[in-house]
């Protein structure tokens, strides 16, 4: 191999000027922890999709109820149970499957298709030009299921025209009391988010303080504080919540308190674990040998190093609080009318699921999106903020 090198000019073999400083240079650009984390989060498509979904839902929760002229507690019994009707979409035929054209289809039974049709016309007070129909089946006494022996006709008509609401558009329809569901759904979303965020914030405050104090002071303090947590965790959650709601009268505050009374435990445990780990780290010892006070160590060294974990944990707490509130509402322990949350809306709609499915669909979709959005985002944050993923 040395043969070829003979062609190398002698000039190249002069000593080079190498400054020792140069090797101390840092090749990579300056970047802070948060910026680095954000860059990593940006690369996670699922987390960004979750983030966009959450921003959209939050936007709608704030401004959605203002987008039409109805109030969330404005009842109109004549307009009850109206299907969704959206201007524009109602005229596009191939979008009929969305059920947003104000039309309803009901199945009416009779001794014969004609009988069924007449019964239907009578029941819904329809004139001949107001509906279309389709025969579902003829009368057949031999069918095994007695209910299926009757003839059936599917009648499709525009509910808005019949009831004289031609000029009204309830985008998500109305509920059993004739209240606009669009307004109620976004109002409910707002309340659900409010409860979720408030509960998570209170969890965070109590949990961080409790876990932080327990770990930082350690020893006997830690021992007693941990025993208290164990007792709290030992009592079934639902029992505590039900008792709280009985004592406090159901309402926003009661539910929030009920959610947080045991909810902070998870946060406290996580923060305690982190602080225990951190307080023995050499940079904390170094600060102590420099004469730093407890408050300085907590503020400058411990809290900045647990914010990532706190953020991640909070992002997981919010959806679980929202879901727990929905669950409480669903079993009747939640908000009282006329207030609505996604949970109470689902509870109301569930009662008439087979007749008016649209009432359930929208709150159910939104709560699902919220759950998925928060969890996907929290997962992404965990990957982005985890220092072990660095390098």
């Amino acid at each position, binding site marked *: 191999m040395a043969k070829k090198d003979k062609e190398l000019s002698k000039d190249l073999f002069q000593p080079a000027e190498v400054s020792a*400083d140069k090797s*101390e240079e*840092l090749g*990579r650009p*300056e*970047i*802070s*922890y948060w910026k680095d984390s954000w860059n990593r989060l940006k690369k996670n498509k699922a987390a960004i999709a979750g983030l966009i979904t959450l921003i959209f839902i939050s936007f709608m929760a704030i401004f959605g109820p203002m987008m039409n002229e109805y109030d969330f507690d404005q009842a109109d019994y004549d307009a009850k149970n109206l299907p969704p009707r959206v201007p524009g979409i109602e005229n596009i035929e191939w979008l009929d499957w969305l059920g947003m054209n104000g039309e309803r289809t009901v199945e009416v039974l009779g001794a014969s298709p004609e009988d069924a049709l007449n019964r239907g016309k009578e029941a819904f007070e329809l004139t001949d030009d107001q509906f279309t129909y389709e025969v579902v089946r003829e009368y057949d006494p031999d069918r095994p299921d007695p209910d299926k022996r009757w003839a059936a006709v599917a009648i499709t008509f525009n509910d808005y025209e019949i009831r004289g609401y031609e000029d009204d558009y309830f985008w998500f329809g109305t509920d059993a009391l004739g209240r606009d569901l669009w307004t109620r759904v976004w109002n409910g979303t707002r309340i659900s988010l409010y409860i979720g965020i408030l509960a998570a914030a209170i969890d965070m405050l109590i949990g961080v303080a409790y876990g932080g104090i327990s770990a930082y002071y350690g020893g006997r303090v830690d021992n007693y504080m941990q025993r208290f947590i164990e007792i709290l965790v030992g009592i079934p959650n639902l029992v505590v919540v039900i008792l709280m709601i009985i004592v406090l009268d159901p309402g926003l505050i009661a539910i929030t308190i009920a959610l947080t009374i045991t909810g902070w435990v998870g946060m406290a445990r996580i923060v305690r674990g982190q602080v225990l780990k951190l307080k023995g*780290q*050499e*940079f904390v*010892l*170094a*600060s*102590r*040998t*420099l*004469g*730093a006070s407890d408050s*300085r160590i907590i503020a*400058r*060294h411990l809290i*900045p*190093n647990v914010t990532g974990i706190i953020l991640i944990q909070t992002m997981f707490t919010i959806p679980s609080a929202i879901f727990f509130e929905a669950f409480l509402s669903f079993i009747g322990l939640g908000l009282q009318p006329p207030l609505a949350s996604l949970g109470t809306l689902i509870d109301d709609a569930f009662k008439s699921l087979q007749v008016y499915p649209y009432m359930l669909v929208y709150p159910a979709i939104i709560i699902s999106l919220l759950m998925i959005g928060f969890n996907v985002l929290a997962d992404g944050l965990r990957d982005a903020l985890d*220092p072990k993923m*660095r390098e």
Partner: protein
Amino acid sequence: MSREKLLEVKNLKQYFKSGRKSVVKAVDGLNFDIYKGETFGLVGESGCGKSTTGRTIIRLYDATDGEVLFKGENVHAKKSRGELKKFNRKMQMIFQDPYASLNPRMTVKDIIAEGMDIHGLVKNEKERTEKVHELLRTVGLNKEHANRYPHEFSGGQRQRIGIARALAVEPEFIIADEPISALDVSIQAQVVNLMKKLQKERGLTYLFIAHDLSMVKYISDRIGVMYFGKMVELAESDELYKNPIHPYTKSLLSAIPLPDPDYERNRKRVPYDPSIHDTSEEPEFREVRPGHWVLCTTKEFEQYKAELENK
């Protein structure tokens, strides 16, 4: 020799409770002095209590018993916050793990300036920045590094940032707790050279804790060897190296591999068997030669003395 004693450690004990009843005697009755301007090396194997000693001296732990006098003042006596702060300025520490000893969420500037902030040593932001830049230069880094975060630096650079942090409060005495064991060989030499340079320029006194005897010997004036919480031998570093007396010291010295293949081919290890000691008599720390102390019983004392004379 009438050298000024900077630090006196008297019968220092540090016990830790482990479990309900058992007690770990991490440090069990240490006695030694450190003179002003010298480097005192403390060696021993893992679990011998050398790091605990360092941490107890600087009050990271409260001593179970005994005294630590710094310029004649008891460090462990109850003190006001103001007095403690004064003491914190005079005594500083360099830590082992360059990755764990810097807060990952703080910039290098804030890390180095922390001591100055705590003790109010700078009046304004401009002075603070200047001091930090000066310290960075002192440890061989440049001012462009001030706004960076620790994770961007290599181990050796981080260790130098840790040294700059300790220097910021202008201490007289620095405890270096295994400052080079986590570093690569070439980087170890950088850090040791830097520490020597700083000692000369600033008249610092070091307590250098390590398990690597050859580096300790290089940097230290005197060396203390610890074994299970007790000091077994203490002497000037050349004396200790040439005339080790305690069988544990001999064993430790014989185990260090030297980067010399010929020597390594012919070397023999001396194993240490603690059962050779006479346990009926409590051993004491005795001076077998001026400045050369060994933990021994009366009988061993005579024997060691004879051994040294025959050399």
